[in-house]
């Protein structure tokens, strides 16, 4: 009987120890942390071929050799409004750089709303639509705004989930090999 009690105590002790280890290693680990970063960083950027607001197409294979900043956004998202000024200012700073392209990919919005927003807010960089949300899925987006920096060899070098500011955009640009 004493032996059995010892085994039970041992089993319960082992169980509690495993539980303690699991809890200890998970303390401070936010289960949502996985959703606050891009899993694409360090991997080849997804290919895309998207219709643009001005009636043309933007194709990833035509952007090889350039630093590309891709921003997923839409007109009804408040954090997108919040970062809008930074995006415009960043695009203005690098407007003269022939090896730089900035694309705003519209996520879940209407053509008319986007046209109105672009006109009213003075968006000067390329704005592209994403019919069928294929690019949004391929980039692993979970919402908007999200910004991705792609190096001239087509690798995602950095990403920002949520609104960015000019300093952060400059860091992404530099990470992707952009000229200072």
């Amino acid at each position, binding site marked *: 009987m004493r032996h059995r009690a010892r085994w*039970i105590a041992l089993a*319960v002790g082992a169980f509690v120890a495993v539980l303690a280890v699991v809890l200890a290693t998970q303390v401070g680990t936010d289960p949502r942390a*996985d959703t606050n970063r891009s*899993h694409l960083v360090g991997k080849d950027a997804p290919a895309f071929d998207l219709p643009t607001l001005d009636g043309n197409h933007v194709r990833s294979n035509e952007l090889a050799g350039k630093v590309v900043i891709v921003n997923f956004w839409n007109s009804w998202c408040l954090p997108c409004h919040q970062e809008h000024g930074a995006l415009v200012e960043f695009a203005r700073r690098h407007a003269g750089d022939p090896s730089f392209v900035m694309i705003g990919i519209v996520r*879940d919005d209407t053509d008319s709303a986007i046209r109105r927003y672009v006109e009213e807010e003075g968006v000067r960089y390329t704005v592209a639509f994403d019919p*069928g*949300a*294929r690019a949004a899925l391929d980039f*692993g*987006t979970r919402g908007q705004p999200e910004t991705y920096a792609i190096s001239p060899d087509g690798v995602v070098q950095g990403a920002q989930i949520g609104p960015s500011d000019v300093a952060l955009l400059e860091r992404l640009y530099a990470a992707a090999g952009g000229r200072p």
Partner: protein
Amino acid sequence: MSRRALAWVALAAVLVITLAIVAWPRGGDASDASRVSSLSSELRCPDCEGQSIEQSSTETARAARADIRQRVATGQSDGEIRQAYIDKFGDSILLKPEGGGLGIVVWGLPAAALVLGGGGLVIALRRWRREPHQHPTDADRELVGRARP
């Protein structure tokens, strides 16, 4: 074998068979449509809270369903499709944790708790059964008799 032992064996057999039925992987003859549906219900909708790709009607969920359909049609296995989504979104895209790594602990802890709890209950019940029953002695009866008015 005693009747009591036979009852325990029968109980264990029922438990094992039930667990085997529940845990047995579903057959490989599933149609493409049922594979798409099954995979879509395993994966979390990327841009909504707590819903699967199967349940959600967001544009991204619709795109994901179309993507899974296409992957199934081109001959990718369920594991390959799951992995493609993990590569893109991380483990959190799975509504149920995987059976490897920390997932083993997540699945294993409740099972271990169940086994330990069940074992403890069986031992406790057997011990209680072995406890000697208390029978009233003549002195007890006399005491009760004296207490009655």
